[in-house]
């Protein structure tokens, strides 16, 4: 502080003191003159005696008011003027009489003494004044400092406290109250031990005792306090101890900084580092950096693990690292890296690693570069990922695929063999089963023709039955063949006009049974994309059924129409015939299942099975709706796709 050197000098050259000096000197001159005039006025009464004693008055006053200078000035003026004017011989500075000389001399000596004394007094007074001023200033500064401390203490961004040696909070600032969540007076009723996290207390107390033992002047620790609401807060605590003059501890000054945010950030960072490490370990992924300017390499832990390199070693440099690869893999990888070094191209390259212990791993190495302002590659960084599992899986998939392909080929061969056998069988059925039938009907016919007169009537009936049975058998064979054919052979798809087809078929039925009265209503323009031969089979069966089962109606009605449901087009054939009981609907499409007796409606039960196979083969569905005696509706769809599945082959017969 500057005030300590602020001693006020005696010849203080301030404007004020200069005026004061001028005034003191003027006063001296004026008083001497005034005294001279006064002596003149009163001298008559005193026999014209010099009355030198009078002149002590201006001298004393001047000296007292102005100190040595004005005092001596008044003295000299008085001495000079009296010697010249008043002390005989007048008009000269000489002094004739001894008594006068003594008196004049006393005046001079007294004047000097008074001036000196006054000066001393003056100086002492000035010193006193300066001292007082100093004291004032000190007091001011003290007050200021006090206020400043108060402000600092209260408004500090950190918690500050004075704590008694026993741990009692003596004085706390509001920030500390904020941090700990207590009100001021609540906190003062507590000790720091009471609100310190139990795990952190012993550390704190050890430091306190070391400080009390004067081993350390201050200490700083990170610890947790328990806030009023029970939550924990991380604090960076700095403590110093104030001693009393008698060398006993007075109080601690504690500074508490809330580092919760920093701790959380640290924890988050630690967690994220741990997560990264764990992720790298789980992913078998390591990362590396290569600073080309100083040739330094950085590897993450996982790279060591992947290469099987001792973690205490430094990262292998570019030359050394090639020992971890098979020659072929290193050739590919080095080529990629060299390209990257040359023009900064990023790379990705699979490579096979050979560890020092001889075990092998597959990795994918990825790298990228950073260029400086001149476009020179100065930095490379990248990852190494263990893809051994994937590679093995890929190999396994390749192997399985090959196996599967072979199996498919085998199965295909088996299937085509089975198909061939089936073909032979069907061929045999179509060819060889017919001849005996024809023979049966032929010879029974020949018997009737050639020997009819010789048979009794009953024999005639038996022969007729043989003929009927052989016809029935023939129909069955035909049905079977049709059923088999509908799932064999290539589909040759094109546009099929179902309206025209239906008209033609109905006309054919009508020609064969001209006596039937049937109203037909065929929607025009019904076209589907399908195989014409198959569609003829479908429509022949559906219309044939409609025709057959409506035979008992007075006027049969057959309708062919398209119906759109759920965005799908369904072709429907409806009749007003005998219909069927829906309870048996599930049997409808099974081969040789019939819902009517032969004497009601003859048939072999193969038509709808054939229709369903054809529809299914073309990815469609067929549904039937009916009620006994109220006709039936058969609707089918044909999806756009025609799966060339041969699976129905095995269900053929």
């Amino acid at each position: 502080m500057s005030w300590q050197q602020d001693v006020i000098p005696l010849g203080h050259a301030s404007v004020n003191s200069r005026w004061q000096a001028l005034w003191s000197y003027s006063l001296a001159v004026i008083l001497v003159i005034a005294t001279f005039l006064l002596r003149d006025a009163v001298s008559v009464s005193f026999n014209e005696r010099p009355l030198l004693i009078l002149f002590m008055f201006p001298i004393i006053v001047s000296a007292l008011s102005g100190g040595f200078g004005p005092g001596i000035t008044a003295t000299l003026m008085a001495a000079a003027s009296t010697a010249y004017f008043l002390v005989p011989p007048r008009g000269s500075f000489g002094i004739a009489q001894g008594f006068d000389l003594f008196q004049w001399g006393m005046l001079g000596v007294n004047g000097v003494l008074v001036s000196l004394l006054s000066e001393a007094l003056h100086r002492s007074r000035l010193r006193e004044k300066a001292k007082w001023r100093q004291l004032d200033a000190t007091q001011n500064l003290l007050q200021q400092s006090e206020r400043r401390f108060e402000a600092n203490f209260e408004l500090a961004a950190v918690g500050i406290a004075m704590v008694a040696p026993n741990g009692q909070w003596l004085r706390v600032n509001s920030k500390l109250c904020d941090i700990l969540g207590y009100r001021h007076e609540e906190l003062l009723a507590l000790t720091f031990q009471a609100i310190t996290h139990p795990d952190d207390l012993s550390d704190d107390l050890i430091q306190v005792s070391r400080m009390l033992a004067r081993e350390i002047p201050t200490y700083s620790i990170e610890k947790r306090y328990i806030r009023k609401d029970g939550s924990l807060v991380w604090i960076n605590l700095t403590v110093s101890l104030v001693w009393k003059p008698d060398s006993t501890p007075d109080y601690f000054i504690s500074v508490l900084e809330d580092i919760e945010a920093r701790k959380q950030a640290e924890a988050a960072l630690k967690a994220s580092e741990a997560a990264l490490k764990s992720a790298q370990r789980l992913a078998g992924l390591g990362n590396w950096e290569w600073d080309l300017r100083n040739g330094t390499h950085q590897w993450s832990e996982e790279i060591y693990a992947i290469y099987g390199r001792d973690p205490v070693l430094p990262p292998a440099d570019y030359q050394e690292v090639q020992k971890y690869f098979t020659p072929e893999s290193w050739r590919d990888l080095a080529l990629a890296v060299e390209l990257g070094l040359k023009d900064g191209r990023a790379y990705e390259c699979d490579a096979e690693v050979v560890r020092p212990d001889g075990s092998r791993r597959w990795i994918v190495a990825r790298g990228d570069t950073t260029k400086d302002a001149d476009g020179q590659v100065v930095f490379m960084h990248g990852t190494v990922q263990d893809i051994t599992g994937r590679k093995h899986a890929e190999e396994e998939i390749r192997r399985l695929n090959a196996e599967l392909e072979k199996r498919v080929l085998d199965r295909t061969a088996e299937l085509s063999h089975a198909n061939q056998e089936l073909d032979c069988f069907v061929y045999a059925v179509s060819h060889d089963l017919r001849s005996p039938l024809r023979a049966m009907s032929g010879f029974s016919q020949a018997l009737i023709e050639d020997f009819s007169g010789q048979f009794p009537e009953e024999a005639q009936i038996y022969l007729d039955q043989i003929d009927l049975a052989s016809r029935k058998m023939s129909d069955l064979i035909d049905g079977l063949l049709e059923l088999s054919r509908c799932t064999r052979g290539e589909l040759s798809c094109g546009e099929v006009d179902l309206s025209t087809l239906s008209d033609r078929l109905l006309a054919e039925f009508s020609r064969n049974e001209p006596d039937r009265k049937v109203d037909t209503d065929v929607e025009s323009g019904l076209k589907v994309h399908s195989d014409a031969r198959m569609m003829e089979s479908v429509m022949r069966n559906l219309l044939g059924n409609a025709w057959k089962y409506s035979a008992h109606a007075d006027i049969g009605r057959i309708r062919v129409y398209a119906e759109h449901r759920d965005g799908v087009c369904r072709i429907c054939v409806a009749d007003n015939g005998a219909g069927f009981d829906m309870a048996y609907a599930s049997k409808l499409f099974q081969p040789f299942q019939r819902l009517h007796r032969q004497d009601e409606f003859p048939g072999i039960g193969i038509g709808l099975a054939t229709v369903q196979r054809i529809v299914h083969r073309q990815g469609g569905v067929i549904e039937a709706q009916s009620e006994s005696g109220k006709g039936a509706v058969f609707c089918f769809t044909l999806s756009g796709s025609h799966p060339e599945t041969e699976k129905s082959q095995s269900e053929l017969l």
Partner: protein
Amino acid sequence: MSSTKTILLVEDNTQDEILTLRTLRKANIANRIDVVRDGQQALDYLFKQGEFVGREGPDLPTVILLDISLPRLSGLEVLKRLRANPLTALVPVVILTSSDEQRDRLSSFQNGANSFVRKPVDFNDFAETVARLGVYWLATNEGPPR
């Protein structure tokens, strides 16, 4: 009908043979009808070889009624051989079979059959068909010049 016109029936099924012959007879076809019972016999007959060396009758029949499924050599094989040989390349061949397989029909015509007739299962139909065949090939059709 002229007796120089003959029919060769290649049929291994005796019942069919009897019924065919009966039908042709009933249709008043009196021409000579020779019957062989397998493919090899048919070739031997046509090329006058084996058991048919020096057989009677014309060198070639007017028409051959050829079944497909035959012992030893199938009807289609016989047909191929006939067509491959200049001597028999032009002789009319009617495939008369129980099969109605498309591929039989196809390969029959591909191999040069003149006609493909499915034996109807119904005897009446069969009789009618065979009778018509006989009349057509012996009387109506003008065969290739010899």
